[in-house]
């Protein structure tokens, strides 16, 4: 009985930690409004460029490309911005800084696994981001005339899927970041990772525009579940079966990510030299 109480207590404390951590981030997020807007504009240029280029191509071909019309392309990339806001997590490139500044040491001294700091922090950041971003999204809608008619189920799956994307990407980036403890050339690995993500996640284009062999590769990698799946859930016409199996796939990749975090963390802590900080 006391074991169950202990478990319940542990879960309650973790929830408490997440809520407190998120609340802290919300306070900070609203402090730096101007900087956040500037960052958002930089972030928006990516999907806007893709949108414009692919729309131009579609228009040159009589309005549709691979059966997808201009309005849907616009919808894809505007929903893209929403999904992107949600899957921004601590960058593996930041680990070098984090180690040097002693932030990792500080985290290691606390009785909580460091991955929770990042997850709570970035989850909290989403809220001020979304609030500040909403008018921009509406503006983009007016400019590019997306065609968006989701079913209720699609909206629900979308909300679950963006959090799934967040979790998967957080875990993957944490594992990548830990590689910094093993090698000084980790940044080269990160670049290969991000390049792959760009091409097979649906970040660059809807996966249906990619050649068939790329799509087959994408099916075996976690990337499409962090971009393409949430976007398509809302924008595309996926069957109920596809939507639900998609969520299961996300669970699977989240489980794999957690296992990797667990294993890599144990290994990398031994390697940690904490020199100078």
């Amino acid at each position, binding site marked *: 009985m006391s074991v169950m109480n202990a478990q319940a207590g542990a879960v309650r404390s973790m929830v408490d930690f997440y809520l407190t951590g998120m609340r802290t981030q919300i306070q900070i997020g609203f402090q730096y409004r101007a900087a956040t807007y500037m960052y958002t504009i930089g972030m928006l240029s990516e999907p806007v460029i893709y949108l414009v280029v692919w729309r131009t191509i579609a228009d040159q071909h009589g309005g549709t490309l691979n059966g997808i019309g201009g309005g849907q392309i616009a919808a894809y990339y505007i929903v893209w911005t929403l999904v992107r806001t949600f899957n921004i997590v601590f960058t593996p490139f930041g680990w070098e800084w984090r180690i040097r500044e002693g932030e990792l040491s500080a985290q290691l*001294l606390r009785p909580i696994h460091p991955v929770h700091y990042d997850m709570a922090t970035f989850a909290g950041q989403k809220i001020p981001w979304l609030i500040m971003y909403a008018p921009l999204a509406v503006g983009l809608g007016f400019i590019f005339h997306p065609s968006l008619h989701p079913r209720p189920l699609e909206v629900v799956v979308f909300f679950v899927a963006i959090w799934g994307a967040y979790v998967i990407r957080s875990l993957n980036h944490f594992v990548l970041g830990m590689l910094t403890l093993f090698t000084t050339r980790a940044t080269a690995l990160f670049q290969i990772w991000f390049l792959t993500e760009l091409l097979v996640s649906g970040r660059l284009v809807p996966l249906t525009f990619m050649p068939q062999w790329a799509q087959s590769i994408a099916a075996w990698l976690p990337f499409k579940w962090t971009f393409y799946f949430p976007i398509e859930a809302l924008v595309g016409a996926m069957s109920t079966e596809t939507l639900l199996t998609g969520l299961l796939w996300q669970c699977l990749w989240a489980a794999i990510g957690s296992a990797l975090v667990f294993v890599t963390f144990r290994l990398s802590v031994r390697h940690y030299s904490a020199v100078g900080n």
Partner: protein
Amino acid sequence: MAGVVHVDALEKVFRVPEREAGLRASLRSLVNRQWREVRAVDGVSFDVEAGEVVGFLGPNGAGKTTTLKMLSGLLHPTGGGARVLGHVPWGREREYLRRMTLVMGNRNQLQWDLPALDSFELNRAIYRLPREPFRETRDELIELLDIGDLVRKPVRQLSLGERMKVEVVGSLLHLPQVLFLDEPTIGLDVTMQKRIRNFIAAYNERYGATVLLTSHYMADVEALCKRVIVIHHGKLLFDGRLEALADRFGAYKTIEAVLADGETISMQVPRNETSAATARLLAENEVHDLTVEDPPIEDVIEQVFAS
């Protein structure tokens, strides 16, 4: 097994790549990496009882900080063992992490943009402290270090000394039984140094916590520690009472005087002859400026090591 902290032949060896200048050498190093061994901690053993305040003295790079980092679980040793509060520190068990704290001078663990009070809330959640007792402890510590007006300002607006004070309080909210303090007063002015020292002494008295403190300021150690451990080149050179240390190491004093005609006299005299020598100096010369100093720690320890 003795006491709260038990350290047994603890060892930490770092492998550092050799780096030479010049085009040829760096090309060679791409193929054939040369490594150098740095014995940061080289077989250190000691025991600390509950409630003791022990000072670790030694120059920069002596191995004091590395020892503390191992005892706080940040580093894995390459040899030997240790137990603190019955736990192996680098096992990083949650139970252990909740009962100890490591404070490093000049290091921020609090949120930069928010008032310290908000960071304290976060610590409460991290350490799973029940709300009411936490509030009491927090308010007590705030009063003890007199930072009531500081905790509501964003941390980035505080001066270096003020920041150190809130950092210290933040790291004690979970009432740890073992404190590892790494150069807690570095870079602070004299008044602030005193305040922090007094606070640590008060905490130690009130809660019976064991304190391991490193510093290269003699003043810190003199104020707080009855027992000191001297570490140099990773080895333990001395472990005993502070008085014995002063007698053995601080055997000399340096007297410097600037005379009326601009000439400077500098001399080393045995400790017990200090006042006689000073008196004679003042009687025989017109002195404009006079300093009587303990020899710097580095010199002293070099002397001991040489002997």
